[in-house]
C-alpha cells in the first residue's frame, strides 16, 4: 500500500482536488467565454447599433439613439424598396391569391386550436402564419405585379428554390448511386468534391463558364443566336446563375447524407416488400421514403440554416446586380456597412436573423418533428 500516497500530497493535492472538483465548469468555460465574446456580446451591441444612428465625428464616431427608426426606414420608409421591394398596386388575381393564403393560414390555426390547443403553440403558429402571409404579400406585390423584389424576397428565393433543387437532385443521385452499379465509390468521391471548394472560387469559375463571348459554351450560345445576350443583365437569368452555383456546391451535401440514409435502411424491409409484390416505385414510396424522411428533413434544416447566410456567390458573380435583383440580405447589410450606415446594416442583419430563425424554427416544429414521429 506504499503507492497509494504517491497520488498527491499536501497543498498541491488541495489545489489539484479543487481543479478536479470543478473540472466540468473549467472544461465548459472556454467555450462559453468564446461564444459570449463572439456571439452574445456582439448580438447585444448589434441590437444597440440597430437602434442608433452612426456618424463619423472628429476623433472617432458618434452614436445617437434613434429607437426603431432604422427598422421603420427599412420596412415602411425610404429603404423599403431595398429590403422588401418596389410594390405596385395589387390586381384582382393577386388579391385572390393573397386572401387564399390568409384563409389557408386561418384554417390551419383554427384546426390547431380545435385539436390540441396550447397558448405557446398558438403564439408560435401565429408568428409563422403572419410571416408566411407577409412574405407572400411581398412576393405578389413585387414579382407578381412586375415590381422589383427586395433583398428579403431574393434571399428567400435562393433559400426556397435553391434548397428544393438541391434536395431533388441530391436525392435523385443518391438513389441512382445506391443501385447495384459499378464504380460506385468513384462516383461518390467525385460528387463530393464541389461541397468543399471555396465558394468564392466557384463564383469566379461560374463567371468564366458563363462568359457569353469567350467562355466554353460560347459556340453553343452563338449557334442559338444568343451571342449578343448577356445573362448578367436580366434579373432572372442572373438569379438563375447564383442558384446554379449554389446548387453545384451544395447538392453533394444532400447526396452524401441521403446516400448513407438509403444504404442504412434495413435490407429486410425492402426484401419483405419485394416478396409482398411491390415494384421499384412502390418500394420507394412506401418503404424507403418513410425510412429516410427524418434524415431528409434534418438535412434540409441544416441547408436552410446555411442558405440564409449566402453572400459569396452574389457578391462575386453579379455584385448584386443587375440593380438589386441578386442581392442577398447579407450582401445588403455588407453594402450598408460600406456606406457607413452602421445602424441600417445592423438592422438588416437583425431582420435576417428574425427571418432565418422564424423559418428554421417553423420548419423544425412542423416538418422535422413530424417526419421523426415514427422514430424510436
Amino acid at each position, binding site marked *: 500500500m506504499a503507492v497509494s500516497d504517491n497520488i498527491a500530497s499536501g497543498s498541491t493535492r488541495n489545489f489539484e482536488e479543487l481543479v478536479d472538483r470543478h473540472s466540468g465548469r473549467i472544461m465548459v468555460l472556454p467555450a462559453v467565454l468564446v461564444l459570449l465574446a463572439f456571439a452574445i456580446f*456582439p*448580438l*447585444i451591441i448589434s441590437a444597440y447599433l440597430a437602434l442608433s444612428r452612426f456618424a463619423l465625428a472628429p476623433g472617432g464616431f458618434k452614436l445617437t439613439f434613434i429607437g426603431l427608426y432604422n427598422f421603420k426606414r427599412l420596412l415602411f420608409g425610404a429603404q423599403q424598396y431595398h429590403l422588401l421591394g418596389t410594390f405596385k398596386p395589387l390586381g384582382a388575381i393577386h388579391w385572390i391569391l393573397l386572401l387564399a393564403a390568409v384563409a389557408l393560414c386561418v384554417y390551419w390555426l383554427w384546426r390547431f386550436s380545435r385539436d390540441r390547443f396550447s397558448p405557446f403553440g398558438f403564439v408560435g403558429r401565429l408568428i409563422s402564419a403572419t410571416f408566411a402571409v407577409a412574405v407572400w404579400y411581398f412576393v405578389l406585390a413585387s414579382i407578381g405585379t412586375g415590381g422589383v423584389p427586395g433583398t428579403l424576397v431574393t434571399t428567400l428565393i435562393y433559400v426556397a428554390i435553391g434548397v428544393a433543387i438541391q434536395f431533388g437532385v441530391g436525392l435523385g443521385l443518391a438513389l441512382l448511386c445506391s443501385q447495384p452499379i459499378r464504380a460506385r465509390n468513384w462516383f*461518390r468521391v467525385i460528387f463530393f468534391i464541389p461541397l468543399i471548394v471555396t465558394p468564392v472560387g466557384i463564383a469566379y469559375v461560374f463567371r468564366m463558364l458563363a462568359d457569353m463571348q469567350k467562355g466554353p459554351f460560347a459556340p453553343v450560345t452563338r449557334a442559338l443566336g444568343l451571342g449578343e445576350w448577356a445573362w448578367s443583365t436580366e434579373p432572372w437569368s442572373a438569379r438563375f446563375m447564383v442558384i446554379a452555383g449554389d446548387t453545384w456546391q451544395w447538392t453533394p451535401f444532400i447526396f452524401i447524407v441521403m446516400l448513407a440514409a438509403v444504404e442504412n435502411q434495413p435490407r429486410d424491409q425492402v426484401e419483405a416488400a419485394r416478396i409482398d409484390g411491390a415494384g421499384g416505385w412502390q418500394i420507394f414510396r412506401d418503404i424507403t421514403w418513410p425510412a429516410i424522411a427524418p434524415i431528409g428533413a434534418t438535412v434540409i434544416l441544416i441547408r436552410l440554416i446555411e442558405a440564409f447566410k449566402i453572400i459569396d456567390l452574389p457578391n462575386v458573380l453579379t455584385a448584386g446586380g443587375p440593380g438589386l435583383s441578386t442581392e442577398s440580405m447579407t450582401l445588403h447589410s455588407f453594402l450598408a456597412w460600406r456606406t457607413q450606415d452602421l445602424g441600417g446594416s445592423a438592422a438588416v442583419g437583425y431582420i435576417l*436573423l428574425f427571418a432565418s430563425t422564424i423559418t428554421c424554427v417553423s420548419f423544425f416544429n412542423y416538418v422535422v418533428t413530424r417526419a421523426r414521429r415514427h422514430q424510436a
Partner: protein
Amino acid sequence: MSAPNAKTLMQRLFEPKSVEAQALVPKIATYAVLLFWTLVVLFPLYWVLVTSFKSESDVFSGPFYLPFVDFQPNLDAWRFMLLENNTLWPYFNSVIVAACSTVLSVLIGSLAAYALVRIQFHVKLAAIGCFLLLLAAVVVAVAAGGIPWPIASIVAIVLFVIFLGTLGRRFRLAVGNNDIEFWMISNRIMPPIVAVLPIYVMFQHLRLLDTQVALIATYTAVNLPIVVWLTRDFFAGIPLDLEESAEIDGASKFRVFFTIALPLVRSGLVATLLLVLILAWNEYLLALFLSNANAQTMPVLVSAQNTTRGPQWWYMSVLIVIMIAPVIVIATFLQKHIARGLLIGAVKG
C-alpha cells in the same frame, strides 16, 4: 407468351435478369445520369485548371478547350502570380488562420462537449437573465452614458456576484446540459453578418484589426458550435466504465479526457477537424470585414481581383487553382472521414 422461358424484347430491356442485377434500360439511364453529373462536377474544375495555363490572347481570341491541341499552354500566369505578385503572403495567412483556428475550436469545443456529456450542470435561469441584463446595461452605460468600460464592467461583476449570493439562491428554475448544448449549437443559426459589425468595432478598439489573431479568434468562435455538435455524439459513444475505471485508478477528469476519451474518439475527431479546417479555409465574409492588407486570406484576395480592366482570367485561375487544390486533394483522399462528420451531424440532428 408462347414459351414460359423465352422473354420478349421489352422484358429483356426492362426487367432484370436476376434480383441483384439491373435491367438494361434502367442501367443505361442510371449511368447516363451519373456520368452527366460527373461532367457537371468536373468540367468547371477542368476549365479553371486549363485557363491557368493560357495567355491573355488565348483567352480573348475565343474559347480553346484542349491544351497542346488548340492552344499552347504556358506558365506565364503561374510565374507572375507566384513570383511577382504578392500571392504567397495571403496564402500563408490562410494556412495559419485555418490551422490555428481549427486546432483551437476543436480543442475548446471537444472539451465543452465532453463535459456536457459526462458532467451534470445546473445553471440557474435567473443567474443567466441577470447576467444578460447586466451585460446590456454595461453596453448602454458605455455607449450612451459615456462611462468608461472598465468601471462599468467592474460594477456589473460586483452586482452579479452579490445577486448570486443573495437573491439568486431563491430561484429554482435551472437549465441543464441539454439546454446548454442547444444554446451552443444554436449559435450556428445566427447569420455572421449580425455579429460581425460589433466584432469589427471590438477588434478596432483592441487594435487587432487586420491581424491573424483577430481572424483566428473569430473563426474559432464561428466553428465552435459545429465541433460541439459533432463531438458530443462521439463522446457519448464511449462506454462510461472506461472513464470511471480510469478515475478510480487515480486520473483526474482532465487526464481522463486527454488520455482516455480523446484517443478513443480519434477517428471522429479527425472527421471534425477536417470539416472545420475546410470551413475555415473557405471562409469569406468575416475575412472581408476583419482583414485588409496584412491579414488578407485567399478568398478575399481572389474576390479582390475584380480590377477595372475586368477580371484577368488567366491570373485568377492560378489563384483559384492554388486555393482549391488543397481542399480537393483532402476531399479526394479523405472523403470517407469528412463524409462521416457530415453524416453524424445530419443523422443525429
